[in-house]
């Protein structure tokens, strides 16, 4: 067994590195740069029942060490994703995690039912945490009861395991995590973006047309690490961690906090080869840490009586 292979509900991963939803489209663009089969998985762009145009532009703004986006879940809609995008991805030997979104519970159920039947979709990622849409999205992700009920409904129709993507825009993320576990979630993905804003000094107006957007990039990493550290100690389902990952070192840190796999978002825009680079560099880090397998690292920051071998520079 490779030191990087990972078994998670529904997912038999060659390695724990995958591009995060919304940062990789449906893979077509990045396939011009490298063979997508080398990835652990691909979390494709959020899909809603109907096509969505998203928010007006400008949709991105920079911050020190980060980026605000307000794309607004633009996507070609369920039928096109099912009939065109997912079949196109079948040429690659890589499991797909389909991110599903909607405005109502029925929307989520409809998308989940159909996408979970696609042959290369091995898991769903329930997007209840997008801060950039006015209906659905974050409304479900900030209310534990709604999150639980929605998870249960989606689980009932899905043919594949369901991972729920949690929002950091809550006061008690453990409460939401426990709620979705109670609702039958097979795993958790976290964190989604932090709600933020920037204002143009010259115009005095918000830079984003949507006014607010989701903050991502290295500046959110400490928040993600803290939340994964907290949640992983209170749930028994695995966590795919994300939030500012840029390097193999970052992936290791997410594992130590409690993650069992890692997703890379914004850094794909900065360095389009970041995922292959991280996959390449991880074995060296395992050797440095004296770990035979990457899964040994999960939760080491809080597990009692389990210490890493001393760092050997």
């Amino acid at each position, binding site marked *: 067994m490779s030191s990087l292979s990972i078994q998670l509900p529904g997912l038999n991963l060659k390695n724990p590195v995958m591009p995060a939803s919304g940062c990789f489209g449906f893979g077509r663009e990045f396939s011009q740069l490298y063979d997508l089969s080398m990835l652990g998985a691909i979390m494709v762009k959020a899909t809603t029942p109907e096509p969505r145009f998203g928010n007006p532009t400008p949709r991105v703004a920079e911050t020190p060490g980060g980026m605000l*986006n307000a794309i607004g879940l633009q996507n070609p*809609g369920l039928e096109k994703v099912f009939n065109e995008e997912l079949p196109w991805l079948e040429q690659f030997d890589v499991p797909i995690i389909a991110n599903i979104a909607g405005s109502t519970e029925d929307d989520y159920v409809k998308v989940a039912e159909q996408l979970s039947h696609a042959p290369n979709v091995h898991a769903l990622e329930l997007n209840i945490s997008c801060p950039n849409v006015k209906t659905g999205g974050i409304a479900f992700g900030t209310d534990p009861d709604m999150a639980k009920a929605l998870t249960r409904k989606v689980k009932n129709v899905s043919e594949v395991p369901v991972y729920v993507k949690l929002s950091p825009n809550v006061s008690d993320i453990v409460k939401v995590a426990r709620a979705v576990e109670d609702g039958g979630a097979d795993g958790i993905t976290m964190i989604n973006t932090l709600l933020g804003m920037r204002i143009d000094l010259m115009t005095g107006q918000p830079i984003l047309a949507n006014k607010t957007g989701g903050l991502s*990039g290295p500046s959110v990493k400490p928040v993600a690490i803290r939340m994964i550290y907290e949640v992983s100690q209170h749930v028994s389902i695995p966590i795919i961690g994300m939030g500012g990952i840029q390097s193999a070192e970052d992936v290791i840190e997410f594992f130590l906090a409690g993650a069992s796999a890692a997703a890379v978002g914004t850094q794909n825009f900065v360095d389009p080869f970041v995922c292959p680079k991280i996959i390449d560099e991880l074995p060296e880090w395992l050797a440095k840490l004296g770990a035979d397998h990457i899964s040994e690292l999960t939760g080491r920051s809080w597990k009692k009586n389990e210490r890493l071998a001393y760092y050997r520079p």
Partner: protein
Amino acid sequence: MRQENCKIVSNRQIAENIFELVLEGKLAAEMNQPGQFVHVKVADGFDPLLRRPISIASINDGLFTIIYRRQGKGTSLLADKSTGMTVDVLGPLGNGFPVDEANPGQTAVLVGGGVGVPPMYELAKQLARKGVKVISIIGFQSSNAVFYEKELAEFGEVYVATVDGSYGRKGFVTDIINGLEVQADIVFACGPTPMLRAIENGQYAPKTYLSLEERMGCGIGACFACVCHTQEDPKGFTYKKVCSDGPVFQAGEVVI
């Protein structure tokens, strides 16, 4: 498309806050259309985080030139770089101006506004090379911002407009176009959105191509940051991505 650490051959100021950066790299061999752009990482660290889309001004035997305005933190860092250093460049990106649409003997009017001027240089060069008559019209805020007038003059007549009237004709590029006595067969334009809108509305030639600018995330079409509506479906779901479907569009294709 490739990512490459390109060597800086020169980086010099050519007008107020306007810099011309000549880079050496294998990706120059892949640049085939004027109007394409590159995505430049200006800092090694986290701030600024994202790349900067900058249009290609000229392509020449393994070298390529980009021209940028020093405006914020990112472009200031780029302006500080000197000969011999390297810059992380992703490109060439996007679809540029269709040189094939202009035939030998025809007249092409090239319109550039501010940092929309650079792609006009390579375009003028390629059009002139195939026997198209080139007329360049370039517009700036004032005299100290004017650049590439002489360079463009290598390929045909050049008219300059400045908003404050400190150089060339006072006013906008459209004031010059309106006064042209020559009938253009084709118009190519790159510049601020109001300028592009005015050129589209002016219908100065049977064919018009416009290069759009929009804030970008990835530059390759994956992030959906720079989408625009199509004119066929101005409020619907069909869209074009400025980075990968454009940045050059035919007039009437997308909502500006």
